[in-house]
């Protein structure tokens, strides 16, 4: 069984191995509130096209993902983050 020899916590995508992040970045420093005004921090959780990156890829926990989404939506309303990036438009 070749499949079972794969190391846990890693998955293959397009032939390259990607290490999966397990710890939520916000849990690491006990974040209780995600500020929508800090767009640089939010940018990390948004794809190049401007879409929210799913938590299964970023490793964010459900609680913080919910807070993050609210922050992203607020930032979008204030044109701090794009709804759709210019390249796609």
């Amino acid at each position: 069984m070749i499949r079972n020899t794969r190391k846990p916590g890693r998955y293959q995508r397009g032939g390259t191995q990607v290490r999966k992040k397990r710890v939520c970045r916000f849990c690491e420093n006990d974040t209780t509130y995600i500020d929508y005004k800090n767009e640089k921090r939010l940018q990390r959780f948004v794809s190049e096209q401007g879409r929210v990156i799913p938590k299964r890829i970023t490793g964010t926990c459900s609680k913080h993902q919910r807070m993050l989404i609210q922050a992203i939506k607020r930032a979008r309303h204030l044109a701090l983050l794009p709804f759709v990036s210019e390249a796609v438009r």
Partner: protein
Amino acid sequence: MKGLTKRYETVYIVNASLDDAQIDAIIEKTKEFIVKQGGEIQEVEKWGRKRLSFPIQKKNNGFYVVTYFSAPGDFVTKLTRYYHLEEQIIRHLTILLDKKALLALEQKAKEKEASGEAQGESSAESTSGA
């Protein structure tokens, strides 16, 4: 009876093609409006001109202003109405600050203070050195 006052945070974007004096006038007007309607301003923060991620009303730049204030609940609708009437304000957002947000805000203020002190010390050193 007057309603309970709660803490709010409001961000608005002023048309950046105006002169600085005109923008200041709008900021003053907004401050006045908040105080007049029974609000109490804690802090007004100017971010200045920033590029918008997407055009709003055919404008690519905006002047961001953040205001922290406390006011009774029915004030927010009045503020929204004011924003709509003010033509030079192209976007606005008012949010209620809950316990967690207030805590984060306090923490941020503390950090700012600490860094400000550190900066003050370093500048003092540089002046003494010179």
